[in-house]
């Protein structure tokens, strides 16, 4: 179980306790949008990315669990000519490196650049091997005006699987030196028929890898739920999922490759819980069947939406936390079967993060 829950919101970074009477405490950046938060398990440092409306993206690190913060240099796109020259919009996701890379960080950004740091965020380099893929010219924005990297999964064997909206699933087996376009089997109903199966333009809303069986990759896609058993190269669609196969978030069980959680919503412009009933679904058989959990969740007039980074599962696969765009935060101690509301009064939630304290 985590020691604390950190919540990245539209108006700052908060800590919410879950034992006894839940308490909400603003940690830092009150009033500023926090687009990503990460604790690097290697050293405990916490990173927070901001998306200041007027003054651009920012990145901060705390070595003392949020008491003090140091502003870090930003990932930055190389100088280029032309009106459309790339410029960092914001950091959408942060990820730690592999087991042998304690100082490594990855940053997924808009407009579609993957960045790497080998000095705890003190300097960054664009991963040009991905940025220079010829098919990048076909990527486009989904929800935002420009494409963005929202999922970076680094498994213990060093494989990196990246999810791009809308640019598909990319896999590197050599620490980012070269990339293979995966995602075969994903299907995009928002494209003309002859482009529907094109892996280049897929919109995986979120990718989640089973930590102990990293060939299993779950994908909550714009057009449904998919599972890969070969490390993201090919996917199989899981059909007829009740109450809906649409959503943003997915959490993979850290040990059991057949178990994953989703938070369904009405597709795809509507994006509210089906019939106003807010539920979490779980499969424990690889997607053959789903259980629908509602205990502790609002079952009428609920319009909470859970974004792609706002559902997280703890290391044992029992403790889950999720936050909604309407500022509600829940947690579960029983693998999602029942939930407890911790607060309903946060700003819109972008990400939840289970943090271990010393």
């Amino acid at each position, binding site marked *: 179980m985590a020691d604390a829950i950190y919540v990245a919101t539209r108006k700052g970074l908060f800590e919410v306790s879950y034992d006894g009477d839940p308490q909400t405490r603003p940690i830092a950046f009150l009033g500023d949008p926090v687009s990503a938060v990460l604790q690097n398990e290697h050293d405990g440092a916490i990173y927070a990315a901001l998306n200041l409306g*007027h*003054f651009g993206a920012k990145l901060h690190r705390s070595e003392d669990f949020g008491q003090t913060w140091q502003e870090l240099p*930003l990932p930055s796109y190389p*100088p280029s000519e032309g009106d459309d020259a790339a*410029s960092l919009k914001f950091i959408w996701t942060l990820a730690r490196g592999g087991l042998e890379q304690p100082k490594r960080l990855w940053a997924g950004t808009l407009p579609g650049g993957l960045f790497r740091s080998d000095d705890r965020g003190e300097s960054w380099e664009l991963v040009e091997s991905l940025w220079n893929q010829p098919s990048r010219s076909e990527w486009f924005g989904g929800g935002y005006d420009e494409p963005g990297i929202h999922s970076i999964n680094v498994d213990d064997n060093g494989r990196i699987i990246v999810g791009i909206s809308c640019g598909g699933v990319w896999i590197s087996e050599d620490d980012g030196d070269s990339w293979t376009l995966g995602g075969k089997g994903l299907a995009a109903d928002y494209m003309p028929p002859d482009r529907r199966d094109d892996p280049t333009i897929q919109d995986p809303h979120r990718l989640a890898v089973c930590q102990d069986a990293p060939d299993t990759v779950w994908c909550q896609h714009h057009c449904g739920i998919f599972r890969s058993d070969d490390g993201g190269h090919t996917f199989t669609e899981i059909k007829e999922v009740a109450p809906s196969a649409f959503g943003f978030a997915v959490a993979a069980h850290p040990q059991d490759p057949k178990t994953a959680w989703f938070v369904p919503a009405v597709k795809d412009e509507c994006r509210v819980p089906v019939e106003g009933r807010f539920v979490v679904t779980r499969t424990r058989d690889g997607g053959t069947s789903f259980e629908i959990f509602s205990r502790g969740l609002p079952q009428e007039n609920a319009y909470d939406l859970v974004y792609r980074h706002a559902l997280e599962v703890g290391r044992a696969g029992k403790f889950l936390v999720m936050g909604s765009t309407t500022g509600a935060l829940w947690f579960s101690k029983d693998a999602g079967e029942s939930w407890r509301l911790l607060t309903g009064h946060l700003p819109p939630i972008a990400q939840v993060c289970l943090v271990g304290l010393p």
Partner: protein
Amino acid sequence: MPQVTFTANLQRHLDVPSLEVDGTRVGDVLAQVFKRKPRLRSYIVDDQGRLRRHVNVFVNSQMIADREGLSDTVRPDDEVFVFQALSGG
């Protein structure tokens, strides 16, 4: 030398008192500012050196015309103001 003054909204994030710096164009003036305050750069311009969309620069009472090349003229006794555009929520 031109004097550069920053919006109070920026003071939330960085300590940026008014500065006097050399320069005959807005771009030169800001380059001198960034030399003294490197962290300020990403708050004012983007990766390509273009003025951020939600930042406005005035020379005295006139908003600058060239937001990408920052070529508007600055005279020694001018004041340069860096403001944020009115937006948010």
